[in-house]
């Protein structure tokens, strides 16, 4: 009988999906720093028979710029292996013929170059950081409240993240503010949305039970992957907090010290 628990499930895996910030590297001044052992862990996975994809809720830069940063840190990664919310949002907007009003960080704007933004009939918010001024949030609110059927897309729903100078409010806070103001429920694009994980699986041509997600965010990485039928393992790096291991609703299939350790465990199980 197939072993479905961690780490036995590694024997039957066909693909691995990695979160990026907090798993591969810690953000901070300049490019940030690679987490020890992570560069080599990615190399080992690439040399194995497992498929590998990267899945991030990063919405402050285009995928090209973001991947270039990781390459500078020493990671062997290409743009086509990385899934981020902005391109996923662009796909949804085009499919539904929607014209967005954007409340996002300037660095990610080029991702939306090909989208018609005249006479908006929905709002897309991302982690806009300093762009979250009262005036900008109010402008998004006015677009929504002026629509017959207000439609809000949120690129992720994080509460906060850590930077070298302290904790910063994330997009989820402003998503909740606009939800409350307009009495609506936003559609989340990115982790933990099942649709987002499913698009990664589709790209690999795998069923959910054949893939494992490794991340530092218990709810968005591990919980999101599990809800979609994948396995989810949490690393004790990045935004990990010890209280995560007794979370009321999400229990990781496994918890490991870092990416290097989890990759060694997986490859060991597979007899490498």
């Amino acid at each position, binding site marked *: 009988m197939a072993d479905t628990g961690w780490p036995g499930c590694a024997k039957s895996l066909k693909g691995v999906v990695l979160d990026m910030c907090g798993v591969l590297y810690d953000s901070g001044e300049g490019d940030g720093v690679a987490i020890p052992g992570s560069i080599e862990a990615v190399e080992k996975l690439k040399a194995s028979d497992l498929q590998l994809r990267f899945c991030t809720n990063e919405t402050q830069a285009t995928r090209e710029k973001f991947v270039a940063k990781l390459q500078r840190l020493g990671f062997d990664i290409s743009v086509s292996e990385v899934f981020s919310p902005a391109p996923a949002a662009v796909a949804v907007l085009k499919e539904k013929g929607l014209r967005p009003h954007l409340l996002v960080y300037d660095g990610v704007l080029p991702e939306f170059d090909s989208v018609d933004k005249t006479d908006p009939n929905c709002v897309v918010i991302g982690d806009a*950081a*300093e*762009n*979250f*001024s*009262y*005036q900008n*949030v*109010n402008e998004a*609110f*006015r677009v929504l*409240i002026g629509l017959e059927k207000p439609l809000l897309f949120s690129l992720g729903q994080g*509460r*906060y993240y850590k930077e070298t100078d*302290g*904790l*910063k*409010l*994330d997009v*989820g*806070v*402003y998503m*909740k*503010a*606009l*939800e*409350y*103001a*307009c*009495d609506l429920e936003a559609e989340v694009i990115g982790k933990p949305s099942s649709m987002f994980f499913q698009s990664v699986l589709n790209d690999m041509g795998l069923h959910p039970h054949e893939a494992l997600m490794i991340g530092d965010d218990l709810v968005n990485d591990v919980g999101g992957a599990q809800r979609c039928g994948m396995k989810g393992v949490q690393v004790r790096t990045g935004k990990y907090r010890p209280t995560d291991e007794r979370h009321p609703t999400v229990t990781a299939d496994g918890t490991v010290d870092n990416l290097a350790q989890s990759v060694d465990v997986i490859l060991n199980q597979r007899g490498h």
Partner: protein
Amino acid sequence: MAGRRALKAVLIDLSGTLHIEDTAVPGAQDALNRLRQASVAVKFVTNTTKESKRNLLERLQRLNFDLQEKEIFTSLSAARSLLEQKQHRPLLLVEDSALEDFTGINTSEPNAVVVGLAPDHFNYQTLNKAFRMILDGAPLIAIHKARYYKRKDGLALGPGPFVTGLEYATDCKATVVGKPEKTFFTQALSDLGCSPSEAVMIGDDARDDVGGAQNAGMLGILVRTGKYREGDESKINPPPHLTCDSFPDAVEHILTNLL
């Protein structure tokens, strides 16, 4: 009134009940004078996040209403009472025009966050500061949680969305101090030395004025002026003690039936 004690206090809403913008409700000044000749205490209660008591007083006096500043109790007064009671030192996210109602409150090394309506403070940097304080254990106090309000140039976000965002970020619940909170009404009555069962509230907002007051144990009278819309009286349960055309009718009812 079976089961009720003699009426000792009348709480009166301002905007929409005594006046609409810069016009007094017809007969309201005389009605207030008649009420003052009876043996009841009178207090003026309102949700405001940016107008100081002095501002409110000046407007009402311009409209020839007879009242004193100490008779006004606002959501800002309620926040101040809470801060004094708990000895908090607040980070005040309120507009400059409201700051004078917090004169004398120690704001050095803040250990509490007070959120009013303050577009100038609702920027990313200031909200991050508030967020970090709350995450470190500072209580979050909201003057009220209105979703939006009407400005000359269109609708604008109220304090509610930002309070809700901070609640989500920190996984905590804000203490709301304005109407329709129970504590707002009990605080408004506290220096009159009377209990809710000895008081009546008159207002134009079915939920915030009448529903809130009745929930606190008072009687509530809804007036069909200001923001009143047809059918508002059926939006609350129990229904208002009385729904009448305007403030003078409410006073007449009190003088005839409740004293």
